[in-house]
């Protein structure tokens, strides 16, 4: 069910182009965004995406590297983690 879904998080100062930048990297590798939400929390911009990676054309590590690089370029911290870590921590 959650075998090939990841949560992508971007955290930093709000500015133009964060969602666009991250989405572009995902699209380039054929990763499909299932849900997207963003907000200002404690003075930071937070973006959370649920992403289907079942058809990506790189390894998860490769995708993570590209997302990190894009994050550095835009000036936000990007993490991409398998969905299960959130499921284990926040759902019983």
């Amino acid at each position: 069910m959650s075998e090939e879904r990841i949560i992508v998080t971007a955290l930093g100062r709000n500015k133009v182009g964060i969602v666009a930048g991250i989405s572009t990297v995902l699209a380039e590798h054929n990763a499909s965004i299932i849900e997207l939400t963003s907000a200002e929390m404690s003075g930071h911009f937070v973006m959370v995406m649920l992403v289907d990676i079942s058809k990506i054309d790189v390894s998860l590590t490769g995708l993570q590297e590209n997302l990190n690089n894009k994050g550095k370029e835009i000036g936000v911290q990007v993490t991409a983690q398998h969905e299960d870590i959130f499921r284990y921590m926040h759902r019983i």
Partner: protein
Amino acid sequence: MFSKEEVLETFEMIHLNGLNIRAVTLGINLLDCTDKNFDKLNANIFSKITTVAERLLAESQDIEHKYGIPIVNKRVSVTPIAFLLESVVADISQKEGVSRAIQVAKTLDQAAEKVGVDYVGGYSAMIQKGWTSGDIALINSLPEALRSTERVCSCVNIAETKSGINVDAALKMGEVIKKTAEKTSKNNGFGCTKLGVYANAPADSPFMPGAYQGVGESEATINVGISGPGIIRMIVEKSENLDFRALAEKIKRASFKITRVGELIGQEVAKRLNVEFGAVDLSLAPTPAKGESIAEIIKAMGLDYCGIPGSTAALALLTDAVKKGGSMATSFVGGMSGAFIPVSEDASMVEAAQVGALSIEKLEAMTSVCSVGLDMVTIPGDTSSETIAAIILDEMAIALVNNKPLGVRVIPVPGKKAGDKIKFGGLLGSSVIMPVSKFNSSKFVKRGGQFPSTIRSLTG
């Protein structure tokens, strides 16, 4: 989908409060390596470890990336080596036996290096009620084995609730600890950091130096040690106005979440290596890094320093809440499961010792409500082996009466006196030499023999 708050909480735990998996330890049964031919025995041990643990590092690293959670230490633990020495030391002199034991330690070290793990545990003996030729060879070899190897750790179990305490073994271990410190005097007695003396040593601990693959375990098992003092500290700091009941509730919730990560990682590593998933050790383990500290949690509860009046109660509340929250989160709890209070590995604990807030006697009291025991305590180099044996006996007695695992890992630092500062480096940190009673316990410990098991053992 998860809420932003949930995702952010996980982010904060990992990136701001140092949530990580402290140790993934692969326990390996070595009993099938036994051979009367000594060279064959060594070859068997090397081959078994390097085969079973071959993919431990690579798979663990891949899992770290997948879940975005660091696994700080990857380790191997093995069947107590004294068992394997039995067949190769029986008919030779004690000196030759010691030399063979040291050779096996070196084999373990080489195997650990080959598979890329930082420690291998299980250079151990179980001597709670007596000793055999294999045990004796191993114990006599310890000072040189720990000096001449890098990754080998040893736990020696000298007491069990059911058997009582082998007091002769306590005396012997007092001597072994002194000799090990002297052999590694150039590095402040570093050899002693890899040696623990235990009561009720659990067969499935992921933490060093206590880890070994006990009899009754599977062929190979993954045991996981979680971390997370930073998260609990943050929660306690944010809960300044809560009473104890509400505070315990907060700690329980956090402990649940931390332990779930251990459960997830343990299951996945075990699945990928095609071995059994053993247990999650619920112990909160500090590091010398700022904030990753049990003493800081105790301070955040409202005490000036860890070690002052109130500290034992604070630690009791913390340990209990961590266990209650954690036990719900994993399919199997194992190891020590409590809170670790290793002095040198916890910067705030060292500070408390430096200002005189924390004494060995208070540490001893605190071990009655947590686990692991007197851990990474640096003491004056001229402390006698009998005094060390007496310190060991006190901890063993607490373990027996409370029916729980406890250990002693003290380092009598050669040439140093109370108040001197020393450095081990890495996860082992820096420390200050803590004063030890100047009065004499030797007549007491030299009574020797078997200290009877307590009435607690007469259950059933």
